[in-house]
C-alpha cells in the first residue's frame, strides 16, 4: 500500500492541548473529538485507542482518533468505537474550511492515505469503519481508496436568524404543543447531576425494553459528567406537578448546541413536554451565542422524521466509510453479521 507524504504518530497526554486546539479551530470537529471525551471513550470501549496525529514537520495537518479491536481474531479499525453512543468521529483536517479547494482536496487525500497506511499496513487491520462528522461531507477520498461510502443525514436549525424567527418557522402544531405544555404547567429548567442520571437511566431502561443488546454502561455517562458536567454537557429537565416527566442532554461545543440524548415521550394525557424541552433548549442556545441547534442523527430515521422536521431544520450530510482489506473478509463479516 502506498504511504503518504505525511507522518503519522500516536498522540500522548503531553499533546492533548495541541489536539484540542485543532478540534476547537475546526468547524467540522464534533465534541466527541475532544481529548477528554476520547479518554472516557477509550476507557469503556474495550478496544485499543490510537489518537493519530498526521503532521508534516512540527505542523499538525489532521487528527484521526481510531479504535482497534479483534473480531474473530481479525484486527478491525473503528472511528468511533463499535457500539459507542457517539455518532461522529473520523478525521479532523486542520484549516479545511479556509483552504483553497485544490489544497483542501490534496491535503484530505494525503491524510486518508496516511491513516490507511497506519491501519492496514502497520496495524494489519482487515476491516475499517469510519463515521465522519457533519461539515466533512466529501467522501471522495475514501471512495477512490476503495471504501464503500454511504451518505447519512442530520438536522440543524440556523439560529443566526434570531429566536423569534426560529419560533415562526416551527410548524403550527409544534407551536400549539409548546403553548399547551406551558398552559398546563410544565416547566423546563437546567438540571444537574441528578437530572442527568435520571435521563440516562430512563433512556437505558427504554433501550433495554426495546431489546437492545448493547446499552452503554451507566459508568460511561458518569465519567463523562465528571469531566464535562460543568460546561459542555447541558441538561434540560421538564417537570409537571412536581415530577420529572421529560428532558434531554445537549452538548455545547464550538457555537453549536447538539441535542444528544432525550427521554422518550411520556404517558401523559393531553400534555407533551418534549416540544417544550426542545424549544427551551433552542432559547438557551440563542441566548448563549450559538449559531446552530443540531438534532443529531434526526434525519435518518423515517419513524422519527416527523417529530424532528417540524422545527423546519436544514438537512446536513455526514457519511460512513467501510473498507475490507480483501473480499474474503467481506464474506467473513457478512457471515458474522448473519450469525450474531
Amino acid at each position, binding site marked *: 500500500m502506498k504511504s503518504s507524504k505525511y507522518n503519522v504518530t500516536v498522540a500522548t497526554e503531553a499533546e492533548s492541548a495541541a489536539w484540542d486546539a485543532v478540534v476547537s479551530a475546526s468547524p467540522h470537529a464534533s465534541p466527541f473529538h475532544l481529548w477528554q471525551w476520547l479518554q472516557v471513550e477509550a476507557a469503556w470501549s474495550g478496544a485499543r485507542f490510537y489518537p493519530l496525529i498526521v503532521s508534516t514537520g512540527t505542523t499538525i495537518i489532521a487528527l484521526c482518533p481510531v479504535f482497534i479491536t479483534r473480531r474473530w481474531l481479525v484486527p478491525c479499525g473503528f472511528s468511533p468505537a463499535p457500539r459507542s453512543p457517539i455518532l461522529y468521529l473520523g478525521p479532523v483536517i486542520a484549516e479545511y474550511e479556509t483552504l483553497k*479547494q485544490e489544497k483542501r482536496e490534496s491535503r484530505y487525500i494525503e491524510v486518508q492515505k496516511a491513516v490507511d497506511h497506519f491501519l492496514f499496513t502497520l496495524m494489519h487491520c482487515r476491516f475499517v469503519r469510519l463515521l465522519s462528522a457533519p461539515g466533512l461531507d466529501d467522501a471522495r477520498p475514501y471512495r477512490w481508496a476503495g471504501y464503500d461510502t454511504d451518505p447519512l443525514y442530520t438536522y440543524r436549525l440556523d439560529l443566526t436568524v434570531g429566536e423569534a424567527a426560529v419560533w415562526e418557522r416551527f410548524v403550527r402544531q409544534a407551536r400549539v404543543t409548546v403553548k399547551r405544555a406551558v398552559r398546563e404547567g410544565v416547566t423546563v429548567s437546567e438540571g444537574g447531576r441528578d437530572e442527568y442520571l435520571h435521563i440516562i437511566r430512563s433512556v437505558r431502561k427504554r433501550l433495554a425494553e426495546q431489546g437492545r443488546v448493547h446499552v452503554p454502561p451507566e459508568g460511561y455517562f458518569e465519567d463523562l459528567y465528571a469531566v464535562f458536567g460543568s460546561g459542555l454537557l447541558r441538561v434540560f429537565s421538564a417537570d409537571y406537578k412536581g415530577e420529572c416527566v421529560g428532558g434531554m442532554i445537549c452538548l455545547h461545543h464550538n457555537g453549536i448546541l447538539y441535542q444528544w440524548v432525550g427521554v422518550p415521550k411520556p404517558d401523559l394525557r393531553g400534555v407533551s413536554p418534549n416540544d417544550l424541552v426542545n424549544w427551551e433548549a433552542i432559547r438557551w442556545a440563542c441566548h448563549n451565542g450559538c449559531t446552530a441547534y443540531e438534532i443529531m442523527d434526526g434525519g435518518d430515521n423515517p419513524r422519527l422524521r416527523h417529530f424532528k422536521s417540524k422545527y423546519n431544520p*436544514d438537512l446536513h*450530510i455526514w457519511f460512513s466509510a467501510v473498507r475490507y482489506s480483501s473480499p474474503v473478509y467481506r464474506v467473513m463479516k457478512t457471515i458474522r453479521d448473519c450469525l450474531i
Partner: protein
Amino acid sequence: MQLTLTPAAAQDEELWNGIVDRSPHSSIFHLWRWLDITARHTKTTFHPLIGMVDEEPLCIVPLFVQKRGPVRFVFSPPPHAAIFGLGPLVAGWDEMLQDRRESVFEALVLETDRYIRTVLRAGYIHIALPYGFDDPRPFTWLGYSVEPAYDYSNDLSEGFEAVVAVMGRKSRQDLARAARRGITVGEGGRIEMEKVIDLMVERYREQKKMVTVSKEYLLELYDVFPGNIRVLVARQEDEIVTGLLDLHWKDRISSWIGNPKPHRRISPSPNDLIAYEALKISCATGFSEYITMSAAGNSRLHHYYASKFNPGLKVRYIVRSVPPSLRALEMVYTRLVKPVLTAVRER
C-alpha cells in the same frame, strides 16, 4: 395530504414546463422537448408523470423505459444522453417548510416506486437526482442504494474580479502566454459545434474509447435550443483546436461537453483559456453560478478542475434499485466483460 401520479401526454407540455420553471432544482434537461428528443435518440420510451398534490399539479417525474431481453429497465436519465442529473421535481420547494417538503417528496417517491413496479413492471431502476437536490432519504427507506456524485461550482455573484482573484500566478502567466502564441477564444454556432463534436470523437478514438452520444442528437438539441447552448472554440492559426459546449438555464451556466485535448501539443493548454473566457462571458452576461458537471467525481481529472478557479464542491445523488440476480449479472459485465471488450478494442 394526498398525492396521485398520472401519465402526461403531449398536450400537457405547457403544464409540465410550468412545473419545471417553478422548481429550484430544475435544469434544461427537464424541459419536455429536450426529453422527447432524448427518448428518440436513446431508443427508450418516455414515461412522463405528473404528481397532483391535493389536486394541484406540483410534481413531475420523467422516466425512460427500455426492454433488454426479459428485463425492463427504468432510467432517469437514460444512458448515453449526456444528461448528468434528472429525476423528479417539486414546484415551489423553496417556499415550503422542511416538514412539508419531506411529506410531499416522500409521498412522491412512494408513488413513483409503486408506479414503476406495478405499471411499468421494471426490475432495474436507476435515477440520477438533479443538481442541488440533497435529500435522497425516501429512496433509502425503500431499499434503494444511494451513491453521491460530485460537481464543482463557481459562485459568480461577486463578479469576474472575485473569480480571477483566486487564480495562481502560474495560471495567469499561462493565459498571457496562450494569448501571445496566437490562441484566441470566440463564440461559435452550429458549424463550430459540429467541429467540437468531431474533435471529441477523434480524441476518444485516440484513447481507444467509444463516443456513446450521437452527433445527430446533439445537433438536434442545438437546433431546438440555440439560445441555451453556447459554443466556445479556441483557434490557433485559424484552426479550431478545441472547444466547449455550455448550457444556460435560469441564472446558471453548466459546462456540458468538450475540452478535448488538442491533437498537437499546444502549451499552455487552450482549454485553460476557454475556461477563463467561459467564466468571463458568464459574469458579463449576468449569470450567478458556473457549474462544472461531474468533473469533481473523477479521480483523474478533479485536480485539474479544482486547481484553476477555486470552485466549491456540490453533492448530488444517484439512486438505484437492482434485484440480486441482476446485480450479479451487472458485476460480471462491469468487472469481466467490459474490461475484456476494452482490451480487445485497444489492440
